[in-house]
């Protein structure tokens, strides 16, 4: 897939001297959902703000849809919709007026039918005549999405879209994001909720202290860095591991009531042999178990490991 966003050697140093981004290289593919993960203050919002034209880069080149964001800002920005992190809305305007405003601002001729469709999708149609100040927090969040979509962007930035959003609305938003992806919209979301990235993203980028630490296909990342654990609950506790079971990754736990076998998920396919031979050896050693289960580390564990490594 071609890159719709191409960032090379992007740096940002604020007037205070604070270096928010250092030599960021990143390509976002057209039509993908890309999750940008990172702790607070890692540079996620700075990166998005530069791409959208709100913050000026100190160095580097950014192209959106092939258009340089500085030289050819009109063409670049027309492709982009931004849903900011904060609930920044007007107060006295109506829902309808504000989405019409957003569409016009981005240089699109009026299209009431399209705006109606968006408001309906976001369950805001009934509220179209309401003043924004009378909306609930969740509605305002949806309104910001409606505004960002009002000019039919090809790239949608969602900066912490589900911060402080209840579970129901979060599910709705995820469903909306998938629908948009099916329509060919590229979506970049920043989050520090790992579950969100895990649920939604095709690819994951991790940013820490202004640098991109890693960019990886989500599934590959989970395979590569994920650990799997096999836990066997024994019928009778063991004082120590029988010599026949001693091998890398095997240990006794819970005072001898459990045997835990940790192995790389990436090796899992070929290494069923490892589990099989472990089970055979258990049998040989006469150790019986009453139950077993496996767990796989989540993106969150991977993320925490990664940031620890970076420190």
């Amino acid at each position, binding site marked *: 897939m071609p890159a719709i966003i191409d960032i090379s050697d992007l740096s940002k140093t604020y007037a205070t001297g604070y270096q928010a981004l250092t030599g960021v290289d990143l390509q976002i593919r057209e039509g993908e959902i890309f999750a940008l993960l990172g702790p607070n203050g890692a540079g996620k919002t700075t990166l998005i703000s530069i791409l959208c034209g709100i913050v000026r880069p100190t160095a580097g080149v950014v192209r959106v849809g092939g258009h340089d964001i500085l030289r050819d800002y009109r063409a670049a920005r027309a492709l*982009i919709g*931004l849903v900011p992190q*904060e609930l920044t809305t007007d*107060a*006295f305007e109506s829902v309808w007026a504000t989405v019409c*405003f957003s569409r*016009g*601002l981005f*240089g699109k001729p009026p299209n009431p039918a399209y705006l109606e469709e968006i408001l309906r999708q976001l369950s805001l149609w009934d509220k179209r005549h309401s003043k924004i100040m009378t909306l609930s927090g969740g509605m305002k969040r949806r309104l910001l999405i409606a*505004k960002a979509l009002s000019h039919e962007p090809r790239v949608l930035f969602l900066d912490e879209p589900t911060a402080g959003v209840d579970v129901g609305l979060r599910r709705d938003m995820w469903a909306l994001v998938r629908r948009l992806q099916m329509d060919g919209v590229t979506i970049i979301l920043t989050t520090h909720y790992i579950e969100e990235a895990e649920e939604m993203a095709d690819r994951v980028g991790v940013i820490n202290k202004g640098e991109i630490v890693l960019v990886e296909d989500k599934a590959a990342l989970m395979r590569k860095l994920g650990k799997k654990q096999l836990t066997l609950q024994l019928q009778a506790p063991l004082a120590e591991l029988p010599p026949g079971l001693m091998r890398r990754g095997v240990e006794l736990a819970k005072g001898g009531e459990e045997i835990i076998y940790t192995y790389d998920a990436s090796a899992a396919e070929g290494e069923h042999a490892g589990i099989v031979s472990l089970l055979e050896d258990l049998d040989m050693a006469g150790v019986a178990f009453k139950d077993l289960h496996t767990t796989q580390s989540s993106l969150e564990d991977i993320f925490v490991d990664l940031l620890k490594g970076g420190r």
Partner: protein
Amino acid sequence: MNLYAIRAIYRFEMARTRRTLVQSIVSPVISTSLYFVVFGAAIGSRIPHIEGVGYGSFIVPGLVMLSLLTQSLSNASFGIYFPRFTGTIYELLSAPVSYVEIVISYVGAAATKSLILGVIILITAALFVPLRVEHPLWMLLFLVLTAITFSLLGFIIGIWADSFEKLQLVPLLIVTPLTFLGGSFYTIDMLPPVWQTVSLFNPVVYLISGFRWSFYGLADVPVGISLAMTGLFLVACMTTVAWIFRTGYRLKA
């Protein structure tokens, strides 16, 4: 040119004007009427005519200018300061609009509103005192130029201010005194010679003088100089705005 954007911002700002129409019209109309009652009827009747013009009529151009200046400043400064304050400015900054388009739409809307008010005040004045306009086209020109220039200045203040207090500061501390000392209520040659010279450094003197000339043919300074000074002030404001957008001053980090 992103004409849709200009239209969107202009409409947005004019909608704000419509929402606050009553207070934005009623208060200047009342305060202007009070001036006419006090200076026109009560005191004005005891003040001799100035170069053949009754005092009540004499102060009309100055009062219209006073409202025009303060309204242009407050409309334009509030129009751009409020989105900065609430954070909704992100949308403007991320939109495919040039700074020229931003300025045209914000300043255009602010100037439109103050022009409407200026005309309303003129009509109000006509109810109290006899008015004549000798050079209607010049009057219109000064009205429009002043509205645009001070809306630009207001725009600059709205970007410079980082609190509501600062937003009030410049109009209150600088513009109101300059207007009162700019010959709204007197001709410059009524002042002692030293103060006549000082007055020539007050840009508002040129605005009011030119504007009054378009009514009665009376001027403190030649009308050409008035026009040139107004143009100069307009260019100064435009240059400042251009600098603001080029450097991102208080708009972009």
